[in-house]
Every structure is written in structure tokens, then in C-alpha cells.
């Protein structure tokens, strides 16, 4: 069924058992994502190493399976990356969900969200955590 393309096993797994769930205390920075159509909110916390790589990433919030799984998968992918690399991955991921035949280099498990292409009304759900990540990366305050 089409619905199984949206809710792949790995999505359901990450939505029920989100990885890196929780907060980080300051000086970690945080960014928020809000979806006005459903009221979903996610907050992403980032701590950076002196070298400017993402040392720790965590998130909190209540959201749908797609949003929770996408954010959880995101946290597993960006750890150790530089700010520029993480933002680049965000762009690659969003292109992957919105365009046809784009390179999937570096997406790894994030490709499990491919089903969102057939459900464009869920695009916001799949990208909310990434917008929060960008907010956290660009924020100077915890």
C-alpha cells in the first residue's frame, strides 16, 4: 500500500523510539520549528566543538510520526559535521523531497523519507526539525 511507502519500518521505529531525544543545557544553542497547521513544535539543541563541528545534538517536542522520525534521523546524521556541512545536508535533503532525480549523496537513512514525495502536504512535517536545526546553528544564545 502507498501508506507503507510513507511509514517505512525505519520511520515507525524512529517515531516510537526517537534517538537523541532530550535537551542540552547552555551554552548549547537551540532552534525552534513550528507548524501552524497542526501545532507541532520541535526544539533542536546543538553544542559545538572548539573546531566548529557539531558535538552533540538533541531534540524535544511533540509531533507526528513523520516529523519525529525525520528529526530523529537528522540528529543521527549531523553529529560530527561542520555547520556548513550540516546546512548543505539540509539543502540536499529538501531537494531530495521536492525535486526529481537529484543526487542522494550523504543522505543515508534519510532516504527512508522518500515516501513524502507522494504526500506533499506532509513536506512541512518532514522538514520541521531541519528548520529548527538551522535555527540552532545560527543562534548565538542557548
Amino acid at each position, binding site marked *: *500500500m*502507498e*501508506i507503507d511507502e*510513507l*511509514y517505512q519500518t525505519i520511520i*515507525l521505529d524512529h*517515531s*516510537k523510539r526517537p534517538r537523541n531525544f532530550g535537551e542540552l543545557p547552555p551554552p548549547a544553542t537551540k532552534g525552534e520549528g513550528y507548524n501552524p*497547521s*497542526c*501545532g*507541532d*513544535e520541535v526544539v533542536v539543541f546543538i553544542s559545538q566543538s572548539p573546531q566548529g563541528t557539531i558535538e552533540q545534538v538533541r531534540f524535544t517536542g*511533540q*509531533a*507526528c*510520526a*513523520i516529523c519525529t522520525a525525520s528529526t530523529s534521523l537528522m540528529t543521527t546524521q549531523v553529529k560530527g559535521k561542520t555547520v556548513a556541512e550540516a546546512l548543505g545536508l539540509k539543502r540536499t535533503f529538501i531537494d531530495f523531497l521536492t525535486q526529481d532525480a537529484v543526487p542522494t549523496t550523504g543522505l543515508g537513512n534519510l532516504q527512508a523519507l522518500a515516501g513524502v514525495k507522494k*504526500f506533499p502536504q*506532509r513536506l512541512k*512535517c518532514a522538514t520541521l526539525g531541519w528548520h529548527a536545526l538551522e535555527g540552532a546553528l545560527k543562534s548565538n544564545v542557548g
Partner: protein
Amino acid sequence: MVVNSLAERYRADFPILDQKVNGFPLVYLDNAASTQHPNCVIDEIARYYREDHANVHRGIHALSSRSTKLYEDARARAARFLGAASAESIIFTRGTTEGINLVATSWGTAHLGPGDVILITEMEHHANLIPWQIAARRTGASLHYLAVHGDEGTIDWSDLERLLSQNRVRLLAFTHISNSLGCINPVQAICATARRHGVTTLVDAAQSAGHAPINVQELDCDFLVFSGHKCCGPTGIGILYGNPAVLDDMQPYQFGGEMISRVTYESADWKPGPHRFEAGTPHIAGAIGLNVAMDYLETIGRPAIQANDHHLGEVAYERLSCLPGIRILGPRRERAGLISFQLGATHAHDLVAYADQFGIALRGGHHCNQPLMRKLGLQATARASFYFYNTESEIDRLVEVLEAAIKYFGA
């Protein structure tokens, strides 16, 4: 039994319902967002465009006079539909939202000031909340809320008397039927209390005008608003009823053609009656379609629709309450034909997406009730809302699919 016989008798009038979605027969349960259209409404709109269309109130020619007559017939029909004494009390709007904005702007600006209180309830749709926030900010009045208690959505209306006597309340605006809780507010008693205190009232009848008999003279409200598309009519057309005593001294809301009498380069005078609130070319076909929709509903009979709603609402409550982990909003009895719920830890959007795969159209979200949802500790609920063309077997189908969803998402 009234029940099911309405669907048996009238469902075939709605061509859109006879289709498959994702391989399953469509089960349309999003009527609180928008209802579907019977053939007679669709046909009349097409006929109007084929045969009668021209601008209203302007031309001397035949088409314009036909068009004007149809438009004004719709106004008279709306007056009868609401039990208003005169068509002069009926203003065409784009819908409930515009009707409330019109009142908040035109009436609010003239009658509200510092120290005044606008009283609404915590269960209002954003359309009956934000215009008052803005009116309060603009005039210096303050906005107070009647509290909603618990998942049942109870409001202690007995407290109204005290609130009205202790505060300088100028306006009481409230919903007849809550779009998220499905509870029905006692409009007549509320308006009577407000009247005793000289408080102006606005009734949001978006969820009730097509579902229950309405008589504005019996209710004794000052304003009542509804949308055409929630009662078998087109989108983009709605009705604002205004009590003549209140309407007469109200200033226009928008300005331009259609609403003026004499214009110079320096100034302008307004037309009398409802026309001064209808600047620009109106949604003529919308009004004409709504006229037919109101006729259609009166043929069925709103008391019968109301009884059917109550029945479907209670049946849905009973059957859904058997699902493990379900949390249902609104009262168990005496409820409208809509039910919103949370199912375990499964998010409303996931439920709605899942149900859609089986042809069931639900609504998921905050239903334009963000503050209420927050107060109840909810982010979003799924909502099934019924109309007279829905059947009990569609509720059974919903329950079946929700049971499968529980397994799927492992709630």
C-alpha cells in the same frame, strides 16, 4: 426512524460522494470544514452563468435586472432562513470570518473604548477570537473569556449574570456549536441574559445554521453569522444578520462602488440598508447558489437534520469510546454531529493520513482552536464531522480503520 432515512433519501443528490478514493468508497467526514453540494445547487450556478449573468444593481438591461432579482431573492430567502423580519437585515459577506470582521471593525470602532469589555468564550474559532483581539487593541477595550472546563467543554453559563453585572461588557460573542468540542450552547438563554444587561450579542452560527432551526427573533441576538459552504452552498458567500436597531447606525466596512448614493470629489454618502456594507461587485452566483441550498435544506427540514446529527454524534461517541486509549472531546450526550479525539500517542496527522488511504476524509489539527487545544493539553486532534448524507455504517467503517491504525502505529 428519522435516522439513515435521510441519507437513503438524499445522498444520491450529491454526485461527489459517489466515488472511490485510494480504491475505497469515499467516506466524507469533514463536513465541519465544508459540506458537499447537491445537484440542484451545482445546476443552478451553472444555469445562472449560462443564462442570466450580469452585474447587479447597475444595468438597465434585461440580464442585469434578472441577475439583480436573483441576488435580492437570495437575500429575502436568507431572511426567511434565519427568521429575520426583513431582508434589510441581511448582509452578504464572503463568509463567517468576514461577517465577524465587519462587526468587529464597524460596530467595534464606534462602540468600544477604554474600560469596555468584550466577552467571548475559550472555545471560539480563531475567526471569532482574533478580530476581537484586534478590536480590543485598537479601541483600548479589554478582551475577557468565559472559561471552558475539562474535555467535556463545559461553560458555566450561570456565571454570565455575575460577569455582565460586574464588568462594563459591551459585546458578548460566542459560538452556537463548537467546531472542536461538538457542544451546543444555549443561545436563547445567553442572549436573554445579555439583553437584560444591555449587552450586544454576536452568534457564530457557522456550525449550526445548516444543522439546526434558527430564528433570530426568538434568539433575540443582535448579530448572527454563517458561511454558505458549511450548509450545502458555495464557498466565498456568507450571511451576516444584523438587528435593525444596531445595524442602522453602523458605518460601512469597505468603501467603493455599489455602496454609495452620492459621490463628489470631496465626499460621499452611503446607501441605506444592507447595500452600504456590500462594496464592490458581490459574489452573485454564490448568493444564488446559497438560495437554492437554503431551499434544499428547508425541504429536508432542519429539525430532521438536527435529530440526525444528534443521533450520529452519539452513535460515534459510543462506538469510538470502545477504542483503547481514545480521548474524546465534548459532551457524551446532547452533542452535535461532530467528534474530535486523540488516539493514544498517535498524532492526528498520522491518523488522518492513514484513514485517507482507506477513503475516509477526516480533519486533523487544532481546528482553529489553538488556545483551547493548549489549555486541554492537546496539540492536535482528529475530527470526524457528519451531515445528513452520512450513515451509521460509515461510522462503523471509521471505527474499523481506526482499529487498524492503532495496530499500525502501535499506539
